[in-house]
């Protein structure tokens, strides 16, 4: 273990910030769905995985990359709507834990289906963006692009939620699930739209992740727990909280990873998370009642 306050430490911190953009985007989709529908999609990272495969095959089939990204976003948005319609809607009125477990079944299904359809070998798009060097530090362009696009995506969502009529209806449903239907808002329609947006965010995240990571059926298990942790730490359903929590957690991962072995960075992050939740059970920034 060697942890000095040198230029590499700074590099780890900056890389952590870049990673946080991606994690924040992933957490945002989950938070949006939880905030509006009050359901945790345990299979969220698996949707991202499906999106990554979608881009992989579209791109290798000759589609330009940006078109493949668009395809993945639409594909996963549709998957989100199907998931809501077929799986979530029948259990909306049952115990919360059933809602969580039912998406766990989807997790198993998607993972196994991906293994069967795409095999267990690692796939890579083969896009190399190179890296940029500042002082002695080097940053992969893919990470920088990811960070910028993720922030852009979040900004667009924020504008949508705050400036459009449907966005306002979504926020209203999130605030009071009982009253809004009385005000003439069709909650079933809003739920479907929210699921589509959540899925679309997963598709966007998939587009960013194929630039950095190899694609394999179990990649969801690597990111899934991390996303849940960020959402809970920020307060489930609290989008701003999740955003800040992503930056905290990613620092643990990158600094821990640069000082010790990678898994210790993750382990410390999980430990920090558990202690933080004991101190503030509603999440660091949670204000939900």
């Amino acid at each position: 273990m060697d942890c000095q306050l040198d230029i590499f430490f700074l590099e780890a911190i900056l890389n952590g910030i870049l990673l946080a953009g991606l994690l924040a985007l992933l957490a945002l989709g989950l938070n949006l769905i939880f905030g509006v529908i009050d359901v945790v999609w345990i299979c969220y990272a698996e949707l991202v995985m499906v999106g990554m495969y979608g881009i992989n095959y579209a791109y290798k089939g000759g589609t330009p990359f940006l078109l493949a990204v668009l395809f993945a976003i639409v594909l996963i948005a549709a998957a989100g709507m199907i998931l809501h319609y077929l799986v979530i809607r029948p259990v909306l009125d049952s115990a919360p834990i059933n809602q969580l477990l039912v998406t766990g079944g989807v997790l198993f299904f998607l993972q196994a289906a991906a293994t069967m359809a795409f095999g267990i070998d690692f796939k890579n798009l083969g896009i190399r963006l190179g890296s940029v060097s500042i002082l002695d530090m080097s940053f992969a362009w893919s990470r920088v692009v990811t960070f910028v696009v993720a922030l852009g995506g979040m900004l667009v969502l924020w504008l949508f939620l705050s400036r459009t009529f449907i966005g306002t209806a979504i926020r209203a449903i999130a605030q009071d699930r009982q009253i809004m239907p009385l005000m003439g808002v069709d909650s079933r329609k809003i739920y479907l739209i929210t699921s589509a947006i959540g899925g679309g965010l997963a598709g966007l995240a998939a587009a960013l992740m194929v630039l950095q990571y190899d694609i394999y059926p179990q990649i969801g298990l690597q990111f899934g727990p991390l996303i849940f942790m960020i959402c809970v730490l920020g307060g489930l359903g609290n989008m701003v909280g999740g955003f800040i929590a992503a930056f905290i957690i990613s620092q643990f991962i990158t600094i821990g990873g640069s000082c010790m072995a990678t898994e210790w960075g993750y382990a410390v992050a999980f430990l920090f998370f558990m202690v933080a939740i004991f101190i503030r059970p509603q999440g660091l920034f949670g204000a939900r009642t």
Partner: protein
Amino acid sequence: MTRISRGAIIGIACLIALPFVIRFFFSASEKYYLHLLIQILIWSFIYTGWSLMGRFGLTSLGHGAFTGLGAYTTVLLWNFAGLSPWLGVPAAVVMAVAVALLVGYPCFRFRISGHYFALLTLALTEFVRLCIVGLRDYTGGSLGTQPRRYGDGVSLYAMQFEPDRMLSYFIALAVWVVGLYLWHRVDRSMDRYALEAASQDEEAAASVGVNVTREKLKITALSAAMCAVGGAIYGQYQMYIGPETIAGLGVSLNIVFAVVAGGMWVMLGPTVGAIFTQLLSEGLRVLIQGSAVLKLWFGSAALALDTAIYGLLLVLFIIYMPKGILGTYLDWRRRHAAQPPNLAARAPRPLESKAGP
């Protein structure tokens, strides 16, 4: 001591006779069938341990951590300290219970429940798995490790019985029966009523004198201890432990889903869940291996087919049969039985469904 029913005695007698029946009729593939039965029994024990908590609304995704702690503590103490599993298993249980209390106390004290509890325990699972992988000098990292063989592989001192499947079967059977007995004791105790009250409404339960935190801690400790024992025995039987096979999120989810499939609120529900999941995966494997067309069609992907079907079935179970196979069957039989209600089997009481807040 509660009275043992006639059905239970007949059932256990049948299970004791079962391996001899197998030896008599299927002596060629005796080892395979016994292996299947041992797997079912060990996992049933672990599932039963989980269902003790699950039936009271404490849906933990952290039990993969306890099985992992049980297996790894036992094996590592044996491999590196030369400590016999007879001491290693109690040490593992102490370890698992300590972790359970350490995580459980703040959880219950601060009323962390529902989604938050599930996701927090999920973090515990990941933490333990990462620690196991991180300590790769001892644990073999993600490749897993093996308990050091002692003598010819069958040893009471080293708790290694794997080559003797018959003996392994009876050990697994004994452990399973103990698990059911513990379930039965909890079912008949005052704690059950306290916990059921707490799972419906914590404030109301506390107001009538239930020490909610203590009751929950008691059941959590028992549940974690059972899973640690189950994990340790699994490791001793398989003679291999890996972070994916006995610890980690996959194991946690498997535990939860098998119990949901079998039935969370009835005694033999977790066992039915174990039988169902094992037979499903084995049946599909045999089916695909036996058919040239299917083999060609799926290739190596066939390994994932059982998980895909499993996931699909679980979605259907939770939507249409939340009481599980056995729970639904018992309900159905009760409704169709033309008996006076007081003779019907005692109804397992599921949690009331809760509307959104």
